[in-house]
């Protein structure tokens, strides 16, 4: 196996790491960069726990090779709060009790953030479709959808 050198930015910081060709971006984030906020649920693109944003696109970090991250701008859950100040989505998830075990939460927060960046005023249906690739085995989704809609309302200044 050959080692590849990758340089990219993660949450605005320049990072460099070495990876095997077969290593996923998810493994590189967690094992090489020690950013363990991004979770592995399935490793096969089905659960969305590994959701990150790469050059503005919501993707599964388990479906992307680490070498493919060369030159890319990656956003993970670790970059969502500003210092001690939580992002409105994070705050609303706590207020609405939109999490229980929390495994799905980083992925859902990242996915919701990417939705609200595109569509600040989504309908409930649009939220449900956008989050269809994020599985939660605990909450039953209602509280998650409520939290996203409420955060959207607040972020629009209503």
């Amino acid at each position, binding site marked *: *196996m*050959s080692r*590849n050198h990758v340089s990219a930015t993660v949450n605005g910081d320049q990072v460099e790491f070495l990876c*095997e*060709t*077969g290593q*996923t971006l998810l493994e590189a984030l967690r094992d090489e960069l020690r950013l363990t906020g991004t979770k592995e649920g399935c*490793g*096969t*693109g*089905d659960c*969305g726990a590994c*959701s990150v944003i*790469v050059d503005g*696109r*919501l*993707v*599964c970090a*388990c*479906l*992307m*090779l680490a*070498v*493919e991250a*060369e030159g890319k701008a990656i956003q993970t859950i670790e970059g969502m709060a500003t210092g001690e100040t939580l992002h409105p989505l994070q705050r609303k998830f706590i207020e609405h009790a939109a999490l229980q075990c929390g495994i799905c939460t980083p992925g859902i927060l990242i*996915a919701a953030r*990417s939705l609200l960046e595109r569509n600040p005023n989504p309908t409930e249906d649009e939220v449900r*479709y*956008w989050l*269809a*690739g*994020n599985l939660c085995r605990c909450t039953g989704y209602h509280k998650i959808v409520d939290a996203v809609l409420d955060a959207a309302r607040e972020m629009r200044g209503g």
Partner: protein
Amino acid sequence: MRYEAPKTLEQAIALLSGANGQARVLAGGTDVLIQLRSGRADPQLLVDIKAIPEMRAVVADSGGYRIGAAVTCMELIENEVFARDWPGVVDGVKLIGSVQVKGRATLGGNLCNASPAADGVPALIAAGALVCIAGPLGRREAPVEDFVLGPGRTSLGNGELVAAIQLPRRAPHSGDAYLRFTPRTEMDIAVVGAAVYLTLDGKGVCRSARVGLGAVAARALLVPAAAAALIGTTVDEAALERLAAAASAACRPIDDKRGTKQFRVKVAGVMARRAAAIAIERARRQG
């Protein structure tokens, strides 16, 4: 395993040809990574095609479109001009996994992976799309329905790859649509998929039609008999009945956990009929 991201098509072809069949093209990787993980694929070389500029573009070409093989599903969905002309192709693309999956997956990869249930393929067949293939011996084109040979098998030779998919000029008064049957509305694999592309004349009579079916045989099918049921009619109830019967008759499905043969045969007719109803609605609206 080595990774290369060539910047030109020529370099990509040279890498593939030099690897004695031990190379894999990497587009969005949403099928490739799963196959690597499970051990079903064990190539010595991955050739990432995303750094090749001509593969990244959707180009208007002789009234139609050339979709580069590395264009992602999300990019295609967001391309409003394309979606206006080929809404049925976009119906299929929208069904390929979650937003996350579509952020990486390509239509070219959907075709080359050669799954009989690939959601992108029936509407391409109905539209009369061509696969633009490039290889060590130059370029060639093939109709989509002839490109896939069976599950996991395509007509690509050693060193060849798909450069683009070419959609023809959409005819006036025409419309296309794709529908699939799945137990869940999202994140599921088609039990049956059906696509219809039809053209009306000024009097509302169907002048040409093409019907594509997915997940009902070893590969997606072009069904001329189903199209013939529509041509020369106003796509009335009787014509739709004949369409459904012809679509069902063309199925050569398997029994599996997603559906029995009998169920697939029946549902193929229903899906074809419903897709035709959407296509005709779009044809009337688009003028």
